[in-house]
Each structure stands twice: as structure tokens, then as C-alpha cells.
């Protein structure tokens, strides 16, 4: 296999900045939950695209891709990586509408799911595999992430009830010079397949294995690339909460400044988009230098843990 690489990443942060208190009113959170989310989880605000539909989030993300016109003709596939499988009206087809609106109707398009919030990293890996069998060395895959949130999501995602609507577009190519994928690891713990379980022994067991399980996965991914944790310049996490990442950093003996946690309080957890939104933020803050190794990590309910190691 040739090396999968990210040719470009664009992230869309909606204009509407919603405080945790405002979100709590909409989502029906109790005062106690609100305190817990702010104090322990480090949540503060999220971005919501009020009035926007799913297709609008995708169009906005595509619009953030630098040099889209230069890439357009090379985009052969488009994948919408989803946390929750499509649940709109059958006729609505937001992915195809978004592609038509952005002049990308020629791309073969489909949605990918069942790794929940880690479906985005799966999509990057699969994009590389698609390109390996495509035959055109210049072909690209557009990986789209980001979803609308609704009150019922709170019932599906008890660990992070306040979700954001930021979205991202990522162009995946082969053998590019920038952001090469060195390793990808994914692990599903099938005993946690009931995604709405919020209490009881299963929920407790998941909570207990969450940090050690993620730590193991990160260690294995780094080792698979022939590196050590010391080689990591940055970890781009999913923005589920601050406390779990802080504990994970302690367990891995990783300095906290190697974790990009800024967006937890700024955008909240945005389904599959977090690693890409965080990548854009890291570039804005000039946190990645050529040759730096960084790791994207996500955990999806169900329960799938995924990590991807890249070299900038």
C-alpha cells in the first residue's frame, strides 16, 4: 500500500456561540448536570448552526477547503463519516445535495457509519484503501464530518450531552508530502453495543475501561509506527471532555501541553469532526512544524476506539 496522506483540511465553526446554560435549556439538562459538565468536564460553550440543515453543514465545510477549485476535478469519491447513521427523510439525501451545490456531483458518494464518533478516522483509512485500488495516482477522496444535533442525541450520548455542530472537510490523497498517515488502529469492544445504557454495571464497566483502553490503543498505534510517546508533538483528541484526557495524559505520562484541549470549551464535541476541527485549530496556532508527529484519537459509542498517527 502507498502512504495515505491528507492533502487539505477545512473546518467550519458556526457563528452562533451557545453557552452551556443556553444549551441546557434547549436540551433539558438539570442544574446538577450543568454544574458537572462545567466543573468536571470542562465544557463551556458550543457552536450551533441554528436554522441550518445537514447539507448546509457539509457545504460550509467544503467551502473551508483551501484551493478547492484546484482539487475539484481530482475528487473521485466523497464519504460522509457519521456518528449516527442517516436518520433524515429518505428523499432528503443531504450528502448528494451538498455535493451538487459545491460542483462535486461527479464524485461517487456514500455515507459511512457504525464506528460512531470514530467513523471519521475509519473514513480516512478506507479512503487510502479506495485510492490504492483506483488506479489514478492523482485521485482524491473527500471525507466529510459533522452532524446536526438534536435533543434526542442527549439520550444516545450520555457521556457528552452537549454536542456542537462544527463540521470539517478533509481531502485524502496518496503519497502526498504533507500529513502522511503512519499508523491507524481501531478496536471495538462489543460488550458495550447497547449505546443508550447510561447506568448500571455496563455503564460502570465502560467507564472503568475507557481510559486504560484508550491508553493501550494509543501506545499500540505509536508503536506500530515505530515511534515512542516522546516522539508525539501533539494529540488531537475528540472533544468529549477535559477530565478524561487529563487522566489519560497522566496515565501515559504525557505532558498536558501535548494535548490540544482548547476546543473542548470552545466548540464542544462535534461528532466525527473533532480531530479535523482540532487539526485546523492546531495549524491556526502554529503548533505543528514540518516533521512533527501527531496523533488523532476518537472513541465512538458502541464501543469503538480509534487512533491515527500522522507526520506533518
Amino acid at each position, binding site marked *: 500500500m502507498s502512504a495515505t496522506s491528507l492533502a487539505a483540511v477545512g473546518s467550519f465553526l458556526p457563528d452562533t456561540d451557545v453557552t452551556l446554560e443556553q444549551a441546557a435549556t434547549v436540551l433539558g439538562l438539570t442544574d446538577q448536570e450543568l454544574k458537572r459538565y462545567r466543573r468536571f468536564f470542562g465544557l463551556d460553550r458550543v457552536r450551533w448552526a441554528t436554522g441550518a440543515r445537514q447539507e448546509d453543514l457539509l457545504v460550509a465545510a467544503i467551502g473551508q477547503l483551501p484551493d478547492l477549485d484546484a482539487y475539484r476535478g481530482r475528487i473521485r469519491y466523497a464519504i460522509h463519516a457519521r456518528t449516527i447513521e442517516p436518520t433524515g427523510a429518505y428523499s432528503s439525501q443531504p*450528502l448528494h445535495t451538498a455535493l451538487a451545490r459545491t460542483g462535486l456531483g461527479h464524485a461517487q458518494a456514500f455515507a459511512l457509519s*457504525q464506528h460512531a464518533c470514530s*467513523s471519521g478516522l*475509519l473514513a480516512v483509512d478506507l479512503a487510502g484503501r479506495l485510492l490504492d485500488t483506483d488506479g489514478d495516482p492523482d485521485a482524491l477522496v473527500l471525507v466529510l464530518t459533522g452532524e446536526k444535533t438534536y435533543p434526542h442525541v442527549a439520550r444516545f450520548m450520555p457521556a457528552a450531552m452537549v454536542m456542537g455542530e462544527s463540521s470539517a472537510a478533509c481531502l485524502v490523497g496518496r503519497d502526498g508530502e504533507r500529513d502522511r498517515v503512519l499508523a491507524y488502529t481501531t478496536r471495538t469492544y462489543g460488550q458495550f453495543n447497547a449505546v443508550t445504557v447510561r447506568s448500571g454495571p455496563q455503564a460502570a464497566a465502560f467507564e472503568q475501561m475507557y481510559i486504560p483502553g484508550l491508553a493501550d490503543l494509543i501506545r499500540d498505534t505509536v508503536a506500530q509506527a515505530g515511534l515512542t510517546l516522546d516522539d508525539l508533538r501533539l494529540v488531537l483528541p475528540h472533544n468529549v471532555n477535559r477530565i478524561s484526557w487529563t487522566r489519560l495524559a497522566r496515565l501515559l505520562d504525557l505532558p498536558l501541553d501535548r494535548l490540544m484541549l482548547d476546543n473542548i470549551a470552545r466548540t464542544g464535541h462535534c461528532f466525527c469532526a473533532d480531530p479535523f476541527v482540532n487539526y485546523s485549530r492546531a495549524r491556526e496556532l502554529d503548533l505543528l512544524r514540518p516533521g512533527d508527529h501527531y496523533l488523532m484519537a476518537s472513541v465512538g459509542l458502541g464501543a469503538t476506539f480509534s487512533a491515527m498517527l500522522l507526520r506533518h
Partner: protein
Amino acid sequence: MLRLTAVRHFPFDLDDARPSCHGLAEVFAERLAGDGVPADPAAALVGNRNSFSLMSAHVAAQLCPDPDVVLVGHAAHDCDLSTSVAGYLQQRLPGDPLVLAVSEQGATTGFAALTMARALHDTGAGRRILVVLADQATFTYDDPRLSGLDRRRDHAVGLLFTDDGGTPVTELRVLAQVDRQSLPSALAAAAKEAVSAPHGVLVAGAGLSPADTAAATGGQVAVRHAAADRLTTAVWSALADELAAPATCERTVVAVEYEPDLGYLSTLALTVPPAPTSGAVRD
């Protein structure tokens, strides 16, 4: 190259021993509000309660109990959004299979799933790849594109690909932006492998009328038309029937489906060995 080992259609009757799909109507009422589609959150659901998890597990048990990869393809939603299909299968299957789902390409979603299956196979992700295409009939809203569906049963079609499969896939092609005007020439090109073969068969999905296929083939090959009562499995169950039929000589079988609303025309061509008494690739 993908090599087909088995293909089989599994109908599922109402499973009334299972609880109804709790919460589904509420979820859809929220989601459809933005589309202006009415859905009553308190409506009693009518459906057969066969989730993608249950159907996929059943298909795996029948066709391949130890797959390396399970790829679930579906055009519409699941009736159980509270169970991770990946987790459910991972817990029940041996080893550590990669499980994922492909959707949102309407009637041609199965071809998108096969495209992904080919990429996984050709890049070494697995030697036993099980593709499960699923249609379930629990809907909480009315949609003109859902009229005429079989609401009495749910359906799955399993396609198993292994390195020693006896039926090689000689072509898999997905064309986008095929409108009604360009369909005749695109379909003629898609059917060419069947038309030019000594013993060719075209298996046509419900998006193609007998007039479409007659024009494309000039009446030179046998054409089997799929039922029109399912979203994404019908062409594959028709393919399963075709491959199960006895044949004394090698056949070139081309499955083709057209998704008119999205403009996709997709083709799968197989070289099927003779099977004098029973189908070579049923299971």
C-alpha cells in the same frame, strides 16, 4: 480481485417476540422537522422489528461464521438506533472482525458497499469479506419514494467473498451523474459484457424498465428483472436466484441498477462457472 463464494437472500418475517422499536418515532419527529416532513412522535410503529444487527448476525451464521470483515449496506435507516451494529457483531463473531456500514446511495448502495469491499480485499484487510445488504420496513413518516415497498417482511442479502471463491468479479463500476438522457448509452455500455458473451444474462434492478434493458441489449441476452418492492436488496436477491439456477455452460452475468433520483448507474459483472444440477454460488 474479488471472488464470490456465496450469495443468498434472507427474508425476515415479523419478529413479534421482540419489543417494538422504542424511541424511533421521537427521533424521527425531531429530525424530520427541519425537512418539513410531518412525523408523529407518539405514533404506534408498524414494522417487523428486524434490526440490521439481528439480520446481519443471522446472515453471518448462515454464510460465514468467521468473517474478517462485515460490511453492512443499507439505503434507509435501521429500526433500532440504540444498538451498535459493529459492537453487536463483534461481540458475537470470533476473532476481531472489522464491521462498518455504507449507506446513502439509494438503490445503488449495494454497489457502493462492494466498491468498499473490493478496496478492503485488495489492500489486505481480510480474506473473508461478508457484505450484508439490508432493507427493513419500519418507517415513521410518509415519503413518496417509499411507496410500494414490501411492509410485510424485511430482507437481507448476503454476499460472501473469499480468495477461493469460484465466481470472479470481472467488473465493478459505479457511474455518477447519469441522467435520463444519458441512461440509454450508459446502460448499453454497462450491458456490453453480457451482450458480447456467448452466454450472457443481465440482472436488472427496479430502476430500469423492460424497455430500458431491451433498448440496451437489443434483445440479445436473457434479462431478469428484480422486484420493485425493496430499496436496495432486490437486484441482489434477483442475482442470487439467477446464480442458483442450473446451467450447463459458463455464463457472464451482469447485475445493473439505476438510481434515478441520485443519477447513479452501477454494474457488477461475474463469470459464473457451469452448475449442471444446482446453483454454483448460492451457498
